[in-house]
């Protein structure tokens, strides 16, 4: 039963107030994209056992989507950040590296 702090309104919300939304930072491919790129966008998932970036919506709160960095093996939350970005913020990356020295970074 997770708790995540919504970066948009600051509430430390519990899981039942949130809606999960799958892997973060997917790049959308539309018309003109190759079958491979489109398949990757739609289906290929990192699904790592370890550091993971994912989407959540503060559905029962401010209604905003946000992103979270979380360990799927321990459920440790490294941080949350706004959804309006294409990559995790540098300070979050640094924090994850101190917590998980073996982590290979965003691939």
């Amino acid at each position, binding site marked *: 039963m997770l708790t995540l702090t919504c970066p948009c309104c600051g509430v430390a919300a519990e899981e039942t107030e949130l809606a999960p939304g799958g892997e973060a930072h997917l790049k959308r491919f539309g018309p003109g994209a190759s079958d491979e790129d489109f398949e990757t966008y*739609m289906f290929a998932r990192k699904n790592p056992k370890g550091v993971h970036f994912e989407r959540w919506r503060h559905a029962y709160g401010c209604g905003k989507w946000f992103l979270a960095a979380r360990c799927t093996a321990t459920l440790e939350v490294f941080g949350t950040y706004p959804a309006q970005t294409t990559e995790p913020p540098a300070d979050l990356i640094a924090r994850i590296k101190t917590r998980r020295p073996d982590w290979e970074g965003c691939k």
Partner: protein
Amino acid sequence: MRRYSVFAVAREALRFHQGWARAWANPEPKKRYDVVIVGAGGHGLATAYYLGKNYGIRNVAIVEKGWLGGGNTGRNTTIIRSNYLQDPSAAIYEKARSLYEGLSQDLNYNVMFSPRGLLMLGQTEHEVRGYKRTVWANNLQGIETEWIDTARVQKLVPIMNTLGPRYPVLGALYQARGGTARHDAVAWGYARACSDMGMDILQNCEVTGVRSAAGQVQGIDTSRGPIDCGKLAIVVAGHSSVLAEMAGFRLPIESMALQALVSEPIKPCMDVVVMANTVHGYMSQSDKGEMVIGGGTDGFNNYTQRGSWQHVEETVRALIETFPMLSRLKMMRQWGGIVDMTGDRSPILSTTPLGNCFVNCGWGTGGFKAIPGSGWAMAELVAKGTPGPLAAEFGLNRFKEGRFIDESVAAGVAH
């Protein structure tokens, strides 16, 4: 192999059962096998068994990180059914169900397959239409199912509240030959038979890498040393993506926690399996007397084998509404497993971008019922290098082509 029978038990009783042999051997890894199967769960062991039985391939190792049968095989709600809507699903699940019917005799190990009947309740007009559609499909697929009315549902399950008021039971999709089996025994029975064929079951042997050359698999590295192989089959529900990454490709899979729970044991009160998909609950009574209850899946990636509590509440609420007597029973134990969820919630039995490497995964919440059929089809895929008719539609390429096998259209959830 010493055969199991009532006479054998009687003979052993006289000498305090000192004469029983090991059910399966505990060998050291060999340097090379024709086929290495990663994952000694039901699917992996069944794959090995049918490789030996159907194709005579016996130089096989089944490599297991923990203890055999310790993944989802040993932590599911043991439901067996084949009343699926789409042809490919119906075919493989019905193959599995029919193999289950004779599995105890085939393996000489009582897996306690109990075809006690299975009901999927129709509680909205929409659901009723979906199940009727399934019945027609099943008739053409050669699967015996029928739509039964509320009165018959009530007769089959006297403890059910069919009147609602919220979601009155309008009838049910009934598969009389569906039921349950003893989950551990399925893994143990296959393991014993594989071991007897000379296959090596390597427990406590974790795969740490997949070796390949020129696009062909060469072997694996494990916590018990490197092992070469001619062919590699990855059958590790829950950890499919982790193994796929070692093999150098990505799967349309996310690992999520699925929960189940049991009540304290009570005397028999429900002789069939009941699934109520509108309210997301399903329940059967085990031979020990526990009410075995399946819960919902979390919506986020999770490898901890622990789920989120609210799903237990949701399930229990729904079941009390349908089975009011449940309210005064007690939950004895809850647990979780990690399931592979694919892009269309149907399984994958497929060749992979790596030559001679095959994958069997993505069974989601419905893997146990498929074990014999899955093993049968996977053995064919591994032995021949191309899928037979049972596996043909379950290839990875379907995601690129947009050719999905979507079961949720009729039933909402698949278990």
